């Protein structure tokens, strides 16, 4: 599926919104801290403004391929769950099921899943998640995650 979108207009709006968010959260800064961000915000707002103008006047809608958007949203959701799981549950306990979920979600598009696929994926997930966790904690010495489980 493809949609037509005026990328210049939306890019400009994105930049403008970002500039606004930062502008209203400047708080009380001394000259030494404020001079550079102020300059950057002015540049950002100017460039965004020009983009918006160009988008409105001479904007040609670009064709954007958005097929598979559902898959992307699922992928983003899995990433969000992954972070929450690592923070509040445990690294391996989170990574194995989410690895399996993501892998099977992608594999399913190639054809129906068999039980064998599921079992193999679980094994792969356990080896990969456990293996890298071991390497990072034991060999590379990262600090353990502050989560209740492994």
């Amino acid at each position, binding site marked *: 599926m493809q949609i037509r979108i005026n990328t210049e207009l939306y890019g400009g709006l994105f930049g403008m919104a970002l500039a606004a968010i930062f502008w209203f959260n400047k708080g009380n800064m001394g000259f030494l801290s404020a001079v550079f961000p102020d300059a950057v915000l002015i540049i950002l707002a100017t460039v965004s403004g020009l983009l918006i103008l160009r988008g409105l006047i001479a904007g040609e809608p670009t064709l954007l391929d958005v097929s598979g958007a559902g898959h992307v949203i699922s992928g983003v959701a899995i990433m969000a769950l992954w972070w929450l799981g690592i923070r509040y549950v445990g690294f391996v306990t989170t990574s194995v099921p989410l*690895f399996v979920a993501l892998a099977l979600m992608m594999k399913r598009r190639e054809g129906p899943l068999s039980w064998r696929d599921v079992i193999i994926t679980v094994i792969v997930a356990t080896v990969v998640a456990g293996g890298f966790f071991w390497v990072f904690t034991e060999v590379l010495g990262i600090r353990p995650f502050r989560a209740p489980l492994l």
Partner: protein
Amino acid sequence: MEILIAAAAAVLQPHMLVIILLGVTAGLFVGALPGLTATMALALMLPFTFSLEALEGLVALGAVYMGTIYGGAFTAILINTPGTPSSIATTFDGHPMAKQGRALEAISVATIASVIGGVVGVAFLLIAAPPLAQLALRFGPAEMFWVAILGLTLIGSLATGSLLKGLLGGAIGLLIGTIGISPVGGESRFTFGWPPLQGGISLIVALIGLFVIPELLLMIRRGHATLETPADLGRSRFQFGAALRTVLAKPGNLIRSCAIGQVIAIIPGAGGSITSLVAYNEAKRWSKSPETFGKGNPEGVVASESSNNVMVAGSMVPLLTLGIPGAPPDAIILGVMLLHGLRPGLDLFTQTGVLANGFIISMGLAALMLIPVGLLGGRLIYKTILRTPHYYLVPTILIITILGTYALRNNIIDVALMLGLGVVGFVIRGLGLGAAPIVLGLILGTIAEQGYVQSILGGMALDFPQMRLFVNPLSQVLIAIIVLVIGWAAWPQNLRRKKD
């Protein structure tokens, strides 16, 4: 000369060669993992070096450093993900080559370029350290400001498509860089009332987020891998001879890239992150067919990889002669030197000459060892990535990036920032905002800000403090270069050429 021979004899010992081999190999794999940087690899090795002799310790650190910078090329080529900031430019042509089924050729080209760069850097260090050190000292706050501005002109060529969008990306990068403690003012800003943001958004976090996560989401969306499988994997060879010819066919590109790498390496604080970008940009500018860049032109890989490996030894110039760490990993090497009672300075080359020169020579050896280690390691990594089904590859890379980002500062918040930036990066990529200008803005923002504010402070006694930015001769030279660069790009003929 006697010192050099004695130094070479001290390094050409079997156990030294083993240390170098192990160091390069370890560095290579660390560098290939997104999130693991040279700084981190060296920091992990610190306690280990305490138990070694001074020379052995330094040799080990030098070898790992060389290996990490080189290892970044693999992921850059194979999964469009710079393993370290210094290999961003390698993705531009290395990954398109891989997509065309020329991954091994790209790896060979990168390897040869890295080796040449590494050896050239060592040669510079042995021959020209004192004058280069004097040049390094000329870069004060005002000069650094202009260096940053010069760096920002790279946006013109990094922007894919419209220049305005490139500028927008650059400005967003500059803005992201202002989050956290202001480098000169010392106040915390844009933390939105959230203490963890005092640490700012680290370059590597943004790098991984903006490069890796969109690539993964792309694979999830398409449902297949982005890497093309060559027709006959079993027979695809290193193409070492062909790669060597490719690299040597354009000596001008090679020489220019090495020179750029060396000059940027000695500018304190500019770091290795932009060397490869500058070299790439110049390769494209001087090429007769700039339109082939970004589509799998090996010259781009040569420029990026030769310049960033010059930087490894190159940044030792200010370090060994003046005690100025040019890039973050150098700070660790300086720490080790001081602990062993070695004080940076020209005396280092005479009084403790065997040690200093031995260290330098060992880096040359480390560069040479990249050939066997790199080609074998590269083939191993390539085959692993190619043979892993994409539905296992994506979650595996995700796990590595999560762990790597966490390992960076032992900070779980960084992981959230990385994933968040990645998702935003994926969306705005659809709007034509690429990752490279944003990352460039992030790298240069701090340098520009420091240079600007420090210059103004230094000019407080003048009527117009801003004049401080313009008075030094080197500043004026830099301004002239900036004008030339912008003028060149805006010249009507060149504009037309770009459009073609």
